[in-house]
């Protein structure tokens, strides 16, 4: 057994930069490289894509990312774990095998993890939704997808069967890291303390640059050098689950106690009970120590037995969004923008657009923090009106943007830069599914040696 395992966080969201993962693979002395690319809604959108084309529904950047790192990882023996399979891990695995062939790589073993798609189960059992308690059937034919958050077990199993690349759909983000740790160190699935520590490692690495100085800079208060060449993180984890966060020497960004603290609390509610499919992790006793430049020790996490149910994200269609924007500048800009907003409100009544919800934002004044928190701010020299409404049909959504655009001939003086857009809303709710109703499976692809 190795004394410690080095895991790189290669992407923190679907559109993340590609070069930092290449740098990690080349210079990070890694054992594993993970890519976390699956936001809450992404899987529902991917499900729509798959319905239109059964060979699609995996992450659209999958091939590009794999083309960038696969050869390096194969040469250096770095294993890849990613949730880029989205709604179609099997097609994703085939795509990776195709990329491998194109690169002349022979003998790469690619494992696809399925079983997170629980739409049939959720429909059959009609579980209550966690917000409000209405049954899933209340969504009617608007229901799109249901995906349970799988834990580390199928990833461990795939690695035990010598997978070089593991591609999953919906799994808990920290499981991308916890899986390799359990596999390498032989941790027991009821060693709650170690699972809690491994989960913390995963939580810290899964947002990639979020812990190396990305999304952190505040000039004069929190300065970060060279964000254009931000290095992504490396977690060095020992058998007892203790963790050091670092990055490739010479890369941009920084790893400090402060960057680690921000990421530790990110998307956490009760730090004593961070719920995952594998463990209820306890981050409250954690201490953070700077060992040297860009080297931070994070230790002390605990854990308690895992929940008996798995959370599943439920995607559904929730009408349409129609939006229009227009700018006003110079003396009287705010008064003209407010007049424009009043005109639109009246117009939407006159032409009879049924709105389930509507917002009138003045970008530059109150669009972000609302009128209360923005009240004391001085008047800016330019402002942009944003009108956005929720409608039942696309046709109605279109009319919102059209009305904003028509301010160019019928509205206040000096409006410019009008834009309009519409989109179908895919919204997410959650439900809880008993574990025994969820059955992960592993499928292997690629040419064997």
């Amino acid at each position: 057994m190795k004394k410690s395992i080095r895991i790189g966080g290669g992407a923190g969201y679907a559109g993340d930069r590609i070069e930092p993962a290449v740098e990690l693979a080349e210079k990070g002395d890694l054992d594993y490289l993970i890519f976390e690319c699956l936001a809450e809604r992404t899987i529902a959108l991917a499900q729509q894509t798959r319905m239109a084309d059964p060979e699609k529904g995996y992450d659209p950047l999958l091939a590009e990312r794999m083309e960038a790192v696969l050869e390096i990882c194969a040469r250096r023996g770095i294993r890849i774990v990613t949730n880029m399979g989205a709604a179609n891990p099997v097609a994703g695995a085939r795509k990776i095998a195709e990329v491998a062939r194109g690169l002349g790589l022979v003998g790469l073993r690619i494992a696809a993890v399925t079983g997170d798609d629980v739409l049939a189960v959720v429909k059959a059992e009609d579980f209550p939704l966690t917000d409000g308690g209405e049954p899933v059937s209340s969504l009617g034919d608007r229901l799109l997808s249901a995906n349970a958050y799988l834990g580390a077990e199928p990833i461990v199993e795939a690695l035990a069967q010598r997978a070089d690349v593991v591609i999953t759909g919906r799994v808990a983000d920290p499981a991308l890291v916890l899986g390799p740790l359990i596999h390498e160190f032989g941790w027991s699935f009821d060693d709650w303390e170690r699972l809690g520590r491994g989960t913390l490692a995963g939580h810290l690495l899964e947002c990639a640059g979020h812990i190396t100085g990305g999304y952190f800079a505040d000039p004069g208060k929190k300065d970060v050098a060279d964000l254009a060449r931000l290095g992504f993180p490396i977690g060095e984890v020992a058998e007892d689950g203790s963790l050091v966060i670092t990055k490739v020497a010479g890369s941009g960004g920084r790893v400090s106690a402060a960057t680690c603290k921000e990421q530790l609390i990110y998307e956490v509610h009760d730090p004593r009970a961070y719920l995952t499919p594998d463990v209820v992790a306890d981050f409250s006793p954690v201490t953070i120590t700077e060992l040297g430049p860009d080297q931070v020790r994070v230790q002390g996490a605990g854990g308690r037995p895992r929940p008996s149910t798995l959370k599943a994200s439920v995607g559904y269609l929730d009408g349409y969004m129609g939006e229009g924007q227009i700018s006003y500048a110079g003396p009287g800009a705010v008064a003209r923008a407010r007049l424009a907003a009043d005109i639109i409100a009246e117009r939407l009544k006159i032409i009879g657009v049924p709105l389930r919800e509507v917002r009138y934002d003045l970008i530059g004044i109150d669009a972000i923090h609302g009128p209360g928190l923005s009240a004391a701010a001085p008047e800016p020299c330019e402002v942009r009106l944003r009108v956005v409404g929720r409608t039942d049909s696309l046709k109605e959504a279109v009319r919102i943007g059209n009305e904003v655009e028509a301010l160019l001939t019928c509205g206040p003086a000096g409006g410019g830069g009008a834009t309009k857009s519409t989109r179908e809303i895919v919204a997410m709710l959650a439900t809880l599914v008993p574990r025994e109703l969820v059955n992960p499976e592993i499928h292997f692809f690629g040419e064997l040696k």
Partner: protein
Amino acid sequence: MKLHELAHSRAGDKGDTSNLSLIAYDPRDYPLLEEYVTAERVRAHFAGLVHGEVLRYALPGLGALNFVLHNALGGGVTRSLALDAHGKCLSSALLALDIPELDGRRPADGV
């Protein structure tokens, strides 16, 4: 004095719930944060923007607090009409909270 002088923050989102960390640059300032930045003050600060309960969790070992703001994201990230649907900018709104310089105590220098 604004919280921005003493502490940094990052916003996270899950459904219609936002969480905001508040981390003292200097751990010696943590007791001041703990004393002054209560869940009630934060709820009042976000009046009109956050419609549900505000809970506070303490991480004294990190010199940090964590605020969990319910009904804060326009019905949820995926359906919100807000320009900043994730509420990413709420962290900056928290740092705009005014705090008094209590009992002659001053923020510790530096980061």
